[in-house]
């Protein structure tokens, strides 16, 4: 049964009780009114009886007084006016008796009728007495004694009986009124008590009814709130609470479904994030491959790179000799394949000596030492790398290789401006005369020789044996001091083993640069120039 119906029934029950109470009130009120009317009628009758009784008693006394007066003045008849007044008074009393008769209920009417008859006879007797008073005294006394007095006695008795009867009726009506009042009060109190009891019972019932269901709903909501979406609220009722529980359960099902979808979406998102992270890492790796690590970090952090001045950098240029001729002999794929082979080897060497590859332009390869991390050993390490580059090229110069190239290597040391320009296809680049001079060193060199500037020479002369070339005219028309690096100073090869860095070289390197050399080309152990 629905709550609405339950509440309506309870309301109707209480309304019914109110109706019963109201009915009892009206019934009691009607009874009280009737009883009051009876009491009023009884009192009115009692008043009339008393009035009639008083009249008759007054007349009796009047007769006695008349008898007394007559004893003093026994002469003359009663004046006609006095007689008429006497008759009028008797008539008035008679009318009151008739009035009393009209008010008297059927069961008490015979007594009043008897009173009326008796009073009629008594009135006539008294009138006879009055008419004879002072005229025929014997007749007057005879009438009085023979008729009036017996009738007086009888009427006094009748009046006494009537008074008693009316008193009883008044008393009875009063008692009846009290009884009605008592019954009405008792019934009203009983109905009130019953109403209160029913109201309390209904209140308790609904309190428990609501509370039990609300507790189940609350507990269910708490469990569902703790994300246990498999929980279902079971009330076992088909009322509004049952509908609410069903709504909760439907909502929970939808929540579970939504959570499943959300979980899937999150899983997908995590997958995507992982992919993005991987892509990002790859991108960063690519960026780091393209750019120096510090520059790549700066781009990550700031989105751009401020140009930086490096006062001491060694720029190394290489250029293949015979590449142009090879283009006529080799297909594009073969050219690219060979370039890939050479430059991959170059990349590994450059990495090993902590140089920074800057770019390739056609068959030219450009790298730098001393940036972006300042490093005072960069001229030595650039030369070491150059020797290893030469060795790599020489290794590939054999009959099995269709691309048999020599390489010119030029190195110059000086200041540069370094930075990244553009928003796409980032490239770390350097600018300044040092770059141009490095290029001139390369172009002014010879195949498979390392041509360096005087600035570089001054920085490596304590490690390498160099052959001064004097002033060499560059294609720009400038005459510059240039040196070919022929090999390591012989003293630095002392104690050199088959592998590893020669101790003398290591020691000098440590003394000059306060650190260990990162690598050492094997070819130098073999090509040492005797001092």
């Amino acid at each position, binding site marked *: 049964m629905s709550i609405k119906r339950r509440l309506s029934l309870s309301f109707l029950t209480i309304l019914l009780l109110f109706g019963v109470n109201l009915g009892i009130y009206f019934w009691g009120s009607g009874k009280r009114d009737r009883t009051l009317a009876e009491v009023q009628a009884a009192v009115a009758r009692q008043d009339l009886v008393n009035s009639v009784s008083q009249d008759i008693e007054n007349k009796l006394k009047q007769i006695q007084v008349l008898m*007394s007066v007559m004893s003093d003045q026994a002469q003359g008849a009663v004046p006609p006016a006095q007689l008429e007044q006497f008759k009028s008074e008797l008539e008035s009393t008679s009318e009151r008796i008739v009035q009393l008769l009209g008010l008297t209920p059927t069961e008490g009417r015979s007594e009043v009728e008897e009173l009326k008859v008796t009073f009629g006879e008594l009135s006539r007797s008294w009138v006879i007495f009055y008419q004879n008073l002072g005229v025929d005294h*014997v007749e007057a*006394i005879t009438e009085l004694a023979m008729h009036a007095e*017996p009738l007086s006695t009888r009427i006094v008795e009748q009046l006494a009986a009537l008074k008693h009867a009316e008193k009883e009726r008044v008393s009875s009506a009063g008692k009846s009124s009290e009884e009605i009042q008592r019954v009405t009060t008792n019934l009203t109190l009983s109905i009130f008590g019953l109403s209160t009891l029913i109201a309390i019972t209904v209140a308790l019932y609904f309190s428990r009814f609501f509370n039990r269901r609300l507790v189940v709903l609350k507990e269910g909501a708490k469990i569902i709130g703790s994300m246990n979406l498999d929980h279902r609220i079971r009330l076992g009722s088909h009322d509004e609470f049952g509908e609410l529980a069903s709504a909760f359960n439907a909502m929970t099902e939808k929540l579970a479904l939504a959570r499943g979808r959300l979980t899937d979406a999150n899983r997908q998102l995590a997958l995507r994030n992982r992919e993005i992270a991987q892509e990002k890492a790859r991108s960063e790796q690519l960026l780091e491959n393209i750019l120096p690590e510090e520059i790549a970090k700066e781009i990550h952090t700031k989105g751009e790179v401020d140009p930086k001045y490096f006062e001491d950098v060694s720029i190394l240029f290489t250029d293949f000799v015979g590449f142009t001729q090879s283009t006529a002999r080799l297909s594009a794929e073969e050219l690219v394949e060979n370039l890939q082979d050479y430059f991959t080897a170059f990349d590994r060497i450059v990495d090993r000596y902590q140089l920074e590859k800057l770019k390739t332009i056609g068959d030219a390869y450009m790298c730098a030492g001393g940036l972006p991390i300042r490093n005072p050993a960069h001229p030595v390490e650039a030369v070491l790398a150059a020797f290893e580059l030469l060795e790599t090229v020489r290794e590939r110069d054999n009959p099995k290789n269709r691309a048999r190239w020599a390489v010119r290597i030029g190195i110059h040391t000086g200041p540069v401006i370094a930075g990244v320009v553009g928003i796409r296809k980032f490239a770390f680049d350097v600018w300044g005369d040092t770059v141009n001079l490095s290029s001139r060193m390369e172009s002014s060199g010879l195949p498979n020789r390392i041509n360096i500037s005087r600035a570089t020479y001054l920085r490596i002369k304590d490690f390498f044996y160099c052959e001064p070339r004097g002033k060499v005219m560059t294609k720009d028309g400038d005459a510059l001091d240039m040196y070919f690096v022929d090999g390591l100073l012989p003293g630095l090869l002392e104690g050199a083993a088959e592998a590893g860095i020669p101790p003398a070289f290591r020691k000098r390197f440590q003394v000059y640069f306060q650190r260990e050399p990162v690598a050492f080309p094997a070819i130098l152990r073999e090509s040492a120039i005797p001092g």
Partner: protein
Amino acid sequence: MARRFVCSVTLVFVTFLCCLAAPKKPESDVAVIVHPGVGETDLALGEIRRLLLGDRQFWPSGQRVTLMIRAPVARERDVVLKKIYQMSESQFRQYWIAKVFRAEAVAGPKIVYSNAMATQLVRAIPGSISFVSAENVPPGVKVLRIDGRLPGEAGYPLR
């Protein structure tokens, strides 16, 4: 003139003395008469007193007692008041007014103006009782004995 006045005064005085010296006629007893229908013939003085005071208003037969008494100044009334009521005239009146107003009696004694009227009414009204001079008791009424004595007999109380 003076002689005539003295003679007249003397004559009146002599006449007065003659009157005083004349022999007085003896007064008769007062008889208690009742209607012949009344069953009683002899009553004690106390019973008669109760009847006259209105304490007893019915005869043993059930008949109402109708009391009649002579008007004031009559000798019979004086005797009754003195011997039976033992009241003065004013006490008598006050007694009956009070009794009637207390509703202890429906009617008081009826006043009769002569012995003839009294006897006439006693003959006419059943249960009636009155007091008349014993000399004037006519036939048709019953004379009650008081304490066993009739008027004229020695020891009769109403004398």
